[in-house]
């Protein structure tokens, strides 16, 4: 199937399935007379879910970049988000730097970190089984958690880069009370979207991007045509670090910069398996599906079984998808031979 056709199919299918699920839920009041449903509210839930999903995608993106280029399941992405956010907010608060300058400086720190990781961790572990590399990234997680807190302390930092926070009401004419959307979420979604487009360009149209794709396809073939594997890895980790920085700024201004920020990685994992470990568009679509799915499940059905189901629901949803497509929605087909 050609790419255009696929995109068209998704573009058409997504709203249709959202509508169909809405129709199904709108029939719920027939079963339970106390069930609360209006189309305005449903739209609100779906929009909120999608916008949250974009933020999940932002974290998942970092995982995908690294897995694609080096086959490493980088568990430290969450710690990198925290680490970057700590440096960003530290530069701003303790050194009094301008946000833009702090951003650049932090990006520099992340690049340095990427080079260090490549030199100290990845290079000696080359050709080791995937699980060993995975463990090494858990080691990196611990190290970064400790280092970030040693330098900047474990207090909670307020991160305010002047993003709007008030709710906004759309389509007040169509639905009673309108559809409430949080402006902050929209800004965050736009930033994430911009990030993805930039990355897509980087991958598609630059020399480095071509080298990255070559490495992703086949390490050895890439090496043999003269692509410097080590440089590419350092670049990929840098890019993942900068994606982590953007995610850290977004999540940090939502939650305040603190240790718990590292836990956003757990929200990104179901996105990752749903979308496939190797696909950038997969991370985006996965994030949207998980975001909207978990919100719909929690709000409309969570009440029946005690609530608080979001966490495992996301994993269950991803698992059900996996049963039909074991490589994720957009992952490369796994071909096995004896």
């Amino acid at each position: 199937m050609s790419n255009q056709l696929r995109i068209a199919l998704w573009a058409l299918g997504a709203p249709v399935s959202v509508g169909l699920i809405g129709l199904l839920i709108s029939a719920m009041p027939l079963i339970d007379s106390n069930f609360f449903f209006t189309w305005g509210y449903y739209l609100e839930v779906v929009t909120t879910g999608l916008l949250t999903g974009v933020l999940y995608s932002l974290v998942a993106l970092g995982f995908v970049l690294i897995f694609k280029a080096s086959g490493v399941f980088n568990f430290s992405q969450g710690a990198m988000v925290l680490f970057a956010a700590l440096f960003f907010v530290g530069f701003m608060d303790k050194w009094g730097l301008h946000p833009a300058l702090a951003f650049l400086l932090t990006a520099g720190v992340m690049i340095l970190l990427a080079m260090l990781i490549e030199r100290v961790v990845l290079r000696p572990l080359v050709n080791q089984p995937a699980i060993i590399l995975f463990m090494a990234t858990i080691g990196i997680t611990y190290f970064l958690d400790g280092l970030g807190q040693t330098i900047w302390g474990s207090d909670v930092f307020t991160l305010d880069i002047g993003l709007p926070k008030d709710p906004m009401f759309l389509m007040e004419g169509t639905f009673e009370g309108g559809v409430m959307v949080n402006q902050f979420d929209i800004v965050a979604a736009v930033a994430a979207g911009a990030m993805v487009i930039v990355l897509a360009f980087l991958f598609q149209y630059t020399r480095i991007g071509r080298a990255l794709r070559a490495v992703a396809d086949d390490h050895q073939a890439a090496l043999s045509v003269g692509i410097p594997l080590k440089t590419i890895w350092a670049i990929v980790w840098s890019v993942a670090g900068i994606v982590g920085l953007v995610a850290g700024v977004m999540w940090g201004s939502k939650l305040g910069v603190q240790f718990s920020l590292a836990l956003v990685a757990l929200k990104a994992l179901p996105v990752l398996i749903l979308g496939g470990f190797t696909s950038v568009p997969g991370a985006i679509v996965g994030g949207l599906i998980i975001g909207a799915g978990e919100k719909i499940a929690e709000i409309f059905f969570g009440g029946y079984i005690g609530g608080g189901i979001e966490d495992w629901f996301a994993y269950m949803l991803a698992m059900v998808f996996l049963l039909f497509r074991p490589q994720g929605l957009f992952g490369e087909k796994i071909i096995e031979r004896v």
Partner: protein
Amino acid sequence: MSFRKTLTMAALAGVVGAGALAPAPAQAQENGQYMPQMVYRTGPYAPNGIPLANGEGDYLRLLNERDGGINGVPILIEECETAYNTDRGVECYEKMKNGGPTGAAQFSPYSTGITYALIERATADQIPIFSMGYGRADASYGKVFEYVFTAPATYWAGADAAIQYIKAEEGGDLSGKKIALVYHDSAYGKEPIATLEHLAGQEGYNLSLFPVPHPGLEQKSTWLKIGRQVRPDWVIMWGWGVMNQTAIKEAAAVGFPMERFIGNWWAGAEPDVRPAGESAIGYKALQFHGVAHDLKVHQDMKTHLYANGKGLADDESQVGEVLYNRGIVNAVISTEAVRTAMDHFGNKPMTGEQVQWGFENLNLTAERLEALGLTGLMSPLSLSCADHEGGGQARIVQWDGEDWRPASDWIVPNRAGFLSEAYEASAMQYANEKGLTPRDCN
């Protein structure tokens, strides 16, 4: 690295390690009252744990600097990091329980999980566990929980106080009102549910429950439901850590009025509201102690400790923050229990068993609090063999963007009747499971 080198290094590490594992006997030779502190200055809850530990530690140091200890017996202070982690807490307990000349005077675990894990051990070791405003609410029933103290208020008493406040604000009638509880989905968060449900039957309000899974980074669905579907008149929150800031932000994002949003005492400190910025203005919190910056005790801290660079907090301005004050209150109650014990047994280091007697005979009158420079920070307390809660009071405070301001008078939780019956029933269930016979308190 050659194999031999590795082996030598491993052997060396083993030898050094085995030595390091044995806990250093904590200041065993010195004479003094050993008061160990369990703290969590790291990990996900560090923003709350740091001021708590500073307040408690500073007060103990203040006693040493200003008065030369408790009744002239110097205090031996030691901190142990738990990271809010139960197994670490148990390790700290085992390491410190025999410290000093007479062992640990008491432990304040600052974590419901650690408290649960220590109740049996400490009872067997005869060391009081002082779980101030956390842990098991039914431990207030002293006939079963001999070595556990819950003064000045439990979660159940707190839930009752919150409802009393809401009732007063609503003009004395709650029938038909809608109240929502947003809670951390853990042992801690579930504590107030039974009380709130009972009161719902009595007062006629509708209670809806909103569990937030740990750690609570993502609460959009909870608040969409509250703000757009259920639209309760009041929201009570039993939150912890990052969950609080997120909840306040999301509540603002759905336009829920902050004046009708009440957090409990672990959801009502500066680290909870500051990250939310302006959206937190008007947010209320339930406290079992007052808010104050400039009491005599704070001034003493500044002159005796911070002027000499001996204070624990990074900055003098942190003296008097909510959690710092809570650390002080914790240290005041435990040191006054030790003092009570010394008044009875003589001015020498007390054993855990003697401190337990001190707790049970603790009577912090208004005059005593005035003398300690704490008027306004604490309400009077009086504990007994049967009552380990001591009749503490609670009040509602409100965040104005800069500081917490009192928003209500002291509220006396309605302990007679329902609460004390619930304590007894729950404690007796525990006693039955454990095969304990409640002691006689006459």
